[in-house]
């Protein structure tokens, strides 16, 4: 599992949850065309729920892409226009024998 985060503290906090959420939902299962929709929705929802439970003043955007391992390549990139002192992101790349899962979380601060 590889992690990439920006925003230092903000990104680090996000990374903790993402890996756990992915493992909990697709850890140890093989790719299934019938279930992939459900998996992506569950990963996104579960991650969001865990983030909101922290009670921090952020708006969250969670994006998840699941791809079957068949030799095809996938490149993802993101670019953000925000306040680098208060906002941050984290991207986690997870894989098992049959699929890749790339989850990106963006946290945008709410001013209180």
């Amino acid at each position, binding site marked *: 599992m590889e992690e990439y985060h920006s925003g230092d503290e903000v990104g680090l906090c996000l990374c903790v949850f993402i890996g756990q959420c992915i493992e909990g939902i697709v850890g140890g299962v093989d790719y299934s065309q019938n279930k992939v929709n459900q998996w*992506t929705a569950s990963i996104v929802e579960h991650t969001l729920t865990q983030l909101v439970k922290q009670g921090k003043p952020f708006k969250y955007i969670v994006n998840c892409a699941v791809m079957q391992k068949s030799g095809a390549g*996938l490149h993802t990139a993101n670019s953000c226009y925000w306040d680098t002192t208060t906002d941050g992101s984290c991207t986690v790349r997870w894989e098992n024998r049959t699929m890749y899962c790339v989850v990106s979380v963006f946290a945008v601060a709410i001013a209180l």
Partner: protein
Amino acid sequence: MQKEEKQLKGPQEKMKSTIRWKTSKEEPQRKSRTSSQIPIPRRCSSTWMMKKEPRGQKLPDQDEKLIHYQTIPERRFSTDRAHEIIKHIVDERLETVEYSCSCSGISKELSDCIKTAVKKLLYDRYKLVCYVAIGQLKDSVVNCSSRAIWSPTSDTFTEYIYKNRSLFAVCILFAVYKE
């Protein structure tokens, strides 16, 4: 009413001054502590200046961090306009591109381009997040899902999917209002 006159007689000047006095109309048993005679000046004028700050005055630096409690944007983000821009940029950039390792750099370049172009629309207090994924068209299935916790009245997103002979591209732009 009393009149008091002073006459100064001198060889060349003659000055005359008059002071009028007003007696108060109080009942005899009520006696105020102050004098019952109040001089009324003949001409009385007063000037009163109220300093108005000019409109659009720039706040000093330390106050720039103050948040104006405007929870709803004056101009809501237009997803149609952003979609047109994304479509134009992606179609032009990927028209002649075949999938290869260089798509990693192309995806970064695209996300930066899209973000810069949408920034030029000058939506006040909007933060932008641009996500681009470029994948190879082979016998594989990609499933992409997004969800957000935000304010639906002010925040929004737009997406564009492009496909050519050898690759596909998914571009999503999120616009989040700074509350």
